[in-house]
């Protein structure tokens, strides 16, 4: 999970006339990871100590002059570099007080940006696309600078990446609505041009972010329609290719944009799975576009968000720098590697897991976002084809289950189930179950428990294929089917689990997979009597099993001790305050408490003798070697 920590304000900002313009040109790092070099949109560069939120130094150019690119730190010479009035490069050191007295050099063409990164020499990117190392440029400032870009092509964004002795300057251009990516490799110098795929609306990207991962340059860009695409360029190879290549892209994220299109928004890749986005509305709060959100692109989940008014974002070393209103805020963040297991929550206990390999779970999205259908959906090509196949099957078989009476349906099901080909069966079973459920819901008199049970027992069904089935069986109080579903479905949503709980308590419920976070709110829906009853049941089960732990047979489906304890904890978490107040829960709670006490005591005692037992374990049955023996050895 990604989390945004509490932010703090680094400095105040002067509001520009145009609100959509950032009051800051750029934020760069110097050799101290706690420093930030902030260049404002007019005349000054300020060096901040981030943890102290205080400026360490500030440099300003004269009235009338204008800084035209963010100041950067030259990691090799420990100097700062900035460009004023497009052509004047200024270089100064930390101890210099006055920028006017610092070194200056005027070059012959307009500079777009100076880029610097640790481990690499600073490079100067000119507005017409030429690239020079700062050093060589300063040694001959008046050298002619060639034009790389065509007349009307303008640079929109640029970045430099240094990795493994390779130095790249990336920049994107725009010309008549066509966007191109230029990848300039330095030493040896090669330039490669890529054409970005056109978005249907014809709009050009709002923001770019580049990173290097696994020897590939990843470019992430956001369109006004909320689509975040990723394109990958190999860091090595392709050197010999001439001309313009088409740059393939893949959709990483489709952000909800609300009404209209995004005006100013920005997306920054934090790591391979997380993207920070500003200027895009929060999916659950549809008003305003003033959120900073971290999305997980693997699971398409929103993981953190804060409401503020902002539209630009920089990201350095675990911190997001966001100008908003009259201040520059710093928001530290954390992105943890997500694993499928943690996304799924508690899994079925392996000890009692029946062979589940044949259970198909075709729809991840329903599983993951069953309760938030308005959430972003990832387009999975394979699913489309699955759907098509399903339709095909449906067309071929005109079936009695549409209208026929119960026993006819029963026969059809039997025929279907007795067929051997698993692949086909999987599709048709799902299809059939859905139809049966739909029909049962429509016609109150129609219910085919045996047929449904048979379908469930094929193990080709799961909750997401036929979401109504379990609820239907609950409605009809068909507890056998319920049990069966609980037993065989790997993906029952927590809300349904709780619904089952309300109606009946079983072993089976305890064994359904769940995720604490999702289950907890639904557990709160239970009323006190239900909770007390459930707790009593859990206590009974626990005591029963704790007496004969070793007699638990593998074949018997019974919850493990851990599962029982987990449920007790969850129930207490959800209802503790209520239970404390309820007089009839008192006995139960004090029982539980004394039980926990005795367990803690037992474990502490066990802990005490653990080391002794370990020693016993370590003790080898060493031969009693006497003071003297005559032995025979053999050397080879």
């Amino acid at each position, binding site marked *: 999970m990604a989390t945004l920590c509490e932010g703090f304000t680094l400095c105040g900002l002067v509001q520009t006339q145009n609100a959509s313009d950032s009051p800051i040109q750029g934020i760069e790092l110097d050799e101290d990871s706690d420093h930030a070099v902030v260049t404002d949109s007019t005349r000054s560069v300020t060096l901040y100590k981030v943890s102290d939120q205080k400026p360490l130094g500030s440099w300003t150019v004269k009235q009338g002059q204008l800084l035209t690119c963010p100041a950067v730190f030259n990691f090799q010479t420990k100097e700062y570099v900035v460009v004023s009035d497009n052509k004047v490069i200024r270089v100064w050191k930390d101890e210099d007080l006055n920028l006017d007295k610092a070194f200056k050099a005027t070059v012959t063409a307009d500079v777009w940006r100076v880029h610097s990164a640790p481990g690499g020499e600073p490079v100067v990117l000119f507005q017409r696309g030429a690239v020079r190392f700062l050093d060589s440029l300063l040694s001959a400032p008046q050298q002619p600078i060639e034009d790389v870009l065509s007349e009307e092509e303008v640079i929109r964004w640029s970045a430099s990446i240094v990795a493994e002795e390779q130095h790249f300057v990336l920049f994107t251009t725009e010309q008549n609505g066509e966007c191109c990516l230029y990848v300039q490799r330095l030493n040896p110098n090669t330039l490669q041009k890529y054409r970005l795929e056109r978005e249907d609306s014809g709009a050009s990207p709002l923001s770019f972010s580049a990173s290097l991962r696994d020897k590939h340059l990843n470019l992430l860009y956001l369109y006004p329609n909320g689509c975040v695409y990723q394109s990958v360029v190999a860091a090595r190879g392709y050197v010999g290719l001439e001309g313009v290549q088409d740059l393939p892209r893949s959709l990483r994220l489709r952000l909800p944009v609300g009404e209209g299109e995004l005006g100013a928004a920005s997306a920054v890749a934090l790591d391979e799975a997380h993207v920070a986005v500003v200027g895009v509305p929060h999916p659950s709060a549809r008003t305003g576009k003033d959120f900073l959100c971290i999305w997980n692109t693997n699971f398409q989940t929103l993981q953190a968000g804060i409401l503020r008014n902002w539209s630009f974002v920089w990201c350095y070393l675990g911190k997001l720098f966001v100008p908003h209103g009259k201040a520059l805020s710093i928001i530290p963040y954390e992105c943890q590697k997500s694993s499928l297991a943690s996304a799924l929550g508690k899994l079925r206990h392996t000890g009692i897991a029946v062979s589940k390999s044949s259970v198909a779970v075709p729809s991840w999205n329903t599983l993951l976002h069953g309760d938030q259908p308005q959430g972003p959906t990832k387009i999975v090509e394979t699913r489309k084809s699955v759907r098509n196949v399903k339709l095909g099957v449906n067309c071929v078989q005109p079936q009695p289950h549409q209208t026929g009476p119960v026993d006819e349906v029963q026969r059809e099901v039997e025929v279907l189930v007795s067929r051997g080909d698993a692949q086909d069966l999987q599709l048709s079973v799902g299809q059939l179950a859905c139809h049966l459920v739909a029909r049962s819901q429509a016609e109150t008199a129609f219910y085919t428990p045996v047929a449904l049970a048979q379908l469930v027992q094929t193990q080709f069904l799961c909750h997401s294929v036929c979401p109504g089935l379990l609820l239907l069986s609950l409605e009809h109080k068909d507890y056998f089917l319920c049990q069966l579903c609980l037993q065989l479905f790997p993906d029952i949503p927590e809300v349904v689990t709780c619904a089952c709980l309300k109606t009946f308590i079983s072993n089976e419920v305890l064994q359904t997979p769940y995720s604490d976070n999702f289950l907890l709110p639904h557990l709160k829906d239970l009323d006190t009597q239900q909770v007390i009853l459930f707790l009593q049941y859990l206590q009974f089960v626990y005591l029963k099993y704790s007496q004969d732990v070793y007699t638990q047979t593998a074949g018997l489906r019974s919850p493990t001790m851990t599962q029982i304890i987990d449920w007790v904890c969850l129930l207490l978490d959800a209802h503790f305050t209520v239970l404390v107040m309820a007089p009839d829960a008192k006995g139960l709670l004090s029982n539980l408490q004394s039980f926990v006490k005795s367990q803690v005591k037992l474990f502490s005692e066990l*802990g*005490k*003798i*653990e*080391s*002794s037992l370990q020693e016993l374990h370590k003790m080898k049955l060493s031969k009693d*070697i*006497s*003071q*003297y*023996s*005559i*032995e*025979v*050895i*053999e*050397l*080879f």
Partner: protein
Amino acid sequence: MGEFKVHRVRFFDYMPTAIRAMAFNAHTERLALGRMDGSVEIFNFADHYFQEKVIPGKDSRSIEALCWVGGRLFSAGLNGEITEYDLENLRPKYSLEAYGGPIWTITSNSQGAHLAIGCEDGTVKLFEVLEESIQFERNLDRQKGRIISLSWHPSGTQIAAGMMDMIRVFDVPTGRAVQRLLVDRGFGGSKSRETVVWSVVFLSDCTIISGDSAGKVQVWDGHTGTLVKTHLVTKWDVLALSVSKDESSVVVGTSEGTVIQFQFIAPTLQQQQDKEWVRTRTFKNHTHDVRALAEIETAIVSGGMDTQLVVRPLLEKFDERSHASALRKIQFPHRNLVFCAKKAGLLLFQFPGQLELWRLGESDGHGKPGDSLPLKRKPEKLLHLKRKGEDHICCSALSSCGGWLAYSTMSSVRLYRLQTDNNDISITKVPKLPKILRSAHQLCFSSDSSKLFAASSQSSVLVIALSQSECKYVHTLKPKSGSRQPIHLMTNSVDGKWLATANSDCEIHVYNVQKLKLHCIVPVYGSCPSAMGIHPTTNNLTMVHADQQIFEYSIVEKQYTDWSRKLQKQGLHNLWLDRDTPVTHVTFNPKNPEQILLHDMHMFCIIDQSLPLPDQKTQFYNQMTLRSLSEQERPSHLHAFKICKTFQDLLSVSLLDDQSLVMVERPLLAITSQLPAPVRQKKFAT
């Protein structure tokens, strides 16, 4: 290769004594180590921590502290004497009564011009260091209560003295006590007990750091006499302190066996200027009191009650893993204490106070490899010979026929005639020894027992002829090099023609005993030889050095043998070079002239010169692999080094004439079990 019958001997109750003091000479890279029995050992840290010299102890001598002045070594002890050592003749040069009662500490100023000692009667006495001796100069102001520890300010103008419940700072020119720093007592029951300031160091910025019996390490400002910081590091005593050369680190040794490092660093990254003494690391390599400590350039050296010397490298000072960056424990002496009469099957064990002569047992029948054979006769202690006088035994020898036995102390050499008649043994002291035979660094008998060789001063060897009736001085063999260093290894050839000696200058001389003259000098190698032997048939001299290099030198041809050249050219296997204990014995198999037998503390090795040498890619320890291979596959996997690690904590390996091996083990566990109980520490489940 074949089967061997092994006499596995564990009845040598060798017991090292506790380490009491140490002093490191950074200039010569020698560590002087003082033990409880008054013996002093010199380790060469520039040569793989080789124990190059041992000065035997004496009953009346005790060492509380050691101190180097240039290349000269001084000690002081509770007998009230200051002793300077003669490192060439391995004996005290002189001892001086200080007339202040027991001496607790001795230390020299950084200029090396003066020694200060702390006495029981409360005086700090200054001695001037003269060319050949030292001379009492004066007392500093006498205090009430003993002076336990001393430290000179590097400028030499002040001395800090640790006492009972306090530290005094003296102004050296006037002799006045200028500061009195009161040291708190411990808490609870120990409140009534005086706090002993076991150790102090005085740094150049006038910071004083003290360690005391209440378990505290305290940092004081020596200008103002104020306490800056107290670190409570143990419930027991802080016994020893040592400061690094650059004064950026101090290590302390405690009764719990821990060594704790303090470093003078800024506690936070932001304020690099405000440095303070911060406790940084704890090392636990000892089970008992750490009584002696030295922080050297790249390591912490510690020793104490558990008798072992531990060199704990500071890993941040190393760029890569090497033998120097590995933890090293020196548990056994780097010389022989066991002598074997190969013909007679007798073993001689050398203790500081006595000699023990044992006859090995016998078994009958044969067995499979791995079997223990039933004993027909148990081993038998034939003789327990106590030394005469106060001086400890420094060397001894047993003739291979078992008929002669000799030992030497610092003051005398004794020779005995042994007669074993079935189960009876008689011992007769040989009465009149030649006057010239006063003491010896090494003793050995010729293989036919007709001569006794005694290593004497300035690397010379006395040759004594033995016969039933008399014992007669024959000749003194002298090296041409003029080396003044003592001989630490001596061996002779089976044919009685050659004698080889090695001294601490790394020189190896080969004498022709028949002609009584120097035959040749083996080219000097940079590392000290730790073991050598002359081959019984080829008369090749095999030498193993402290750096684990092996050389074979043909005495007859006066040059290295082809095998030796091949070995040097190809280089020894890294796993051989990585071993951390020196080879202490080289012997041969007369029945199989290609075999050289070596051992160190952890392994026993037979080098078969007829087999190919292992290169770096070869599996070096391959005995297990060979065992698992079939007869046909084996030959392609053989290499010259056959290493057996079945026997551990080896003190001696020899091959009897009946082809059976004698392995003398002294399990470290057995040594540990004889130590006094360590301070009690609460552990879980105890």
